[in-house]
């Protein structure tokens, strides 16, 4: 099987995640886009792990760790979002701009 197939998949997932991250106004959709980016990374890691037939399975172990990290992050991210929602009734990113530079 061609190595470049999974890599192309990972790059496109990564790119789509970046696009979603930069364009979506709703915070939760941003989290989703980040998940896509991380999945892109995971595909690439697995592909390289299988390609190198790594004895240590560094790639696949790393994927497991990445998945766990993603889960932890989503948990905390949602907690922060809820806090923000409770404070400002909206989770649109471009409205969360109270902290900024005053042009003095």
């Amino acid at each position, binding site marked *: *099987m061609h190595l470049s197939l999974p890599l192309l998949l990972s790059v496109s*997932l990564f790119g789509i995640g970046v696009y979603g991250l930069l364009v979506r106004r709703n915070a939760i*959709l941003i989290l989703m886009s980040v998940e896509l980016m991380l999945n892109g990374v995971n595909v690439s890691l697995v592909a390289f792990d299988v390609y190198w037939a790594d004895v240590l399975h560094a790639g696949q172990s790393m994927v497991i760790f990445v998945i766990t990290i993603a889960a932890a992050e989503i948990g905390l991210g949602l907690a922060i979002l809820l806090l923000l929602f409770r404070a400002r009734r909206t989770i649109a990113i471009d409205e969360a701009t109270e902290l900024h530079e005053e042009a003095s």
Partner: protein
Amino acid sequence: MSERSLLSPTGVDIAFTLLGLVAVAAALMVVTTKQIVHAALWLVVSLGAVAGCYLVLTAEFVAWMQVLIYLGAVVVLLLFGMMLTRAPIGPSEELTGANRVVSLFAALAITAVLGVLIVDAFATTMIDIDGQKSTASVMGASLFRYWVLPFEALSVLLLSALVGAIALSQSDEEA
């Protein structure tokens, strides 16, 4: 494994390509759909397709982990998040932000650059799939032989995420 150009795929290639296309299409829908709930559902489809890809790549344990944690826990969490933040059910216009052009340019740029690099580096390389089985036992062995430190560190990470989330969700009234 004989060198074969990209154009003469074997069965494995075909399966992987199909699953890949499904994943990419679903991902595109996630970032473009007008309805927030549909986005979550498309995410499920995309992650499922990726899990399939892992299976094709003989990364069996990782595939099950993907299904269990991502589809099971993460997406469910996201849905809960949407409910709690009273996301509108029907289509709502203002989901995509203003600087669309810049974001598109940035995303395309990073994809194009990395894509070119990858194709240039690995255009003809093949993966020898048969003969490799990264089942749960194999992964378990390598995890606990080589990767104990990150494993332990992750436990601290999860615990701190847990406590953090709880502390944040306590409303301001009680101590």
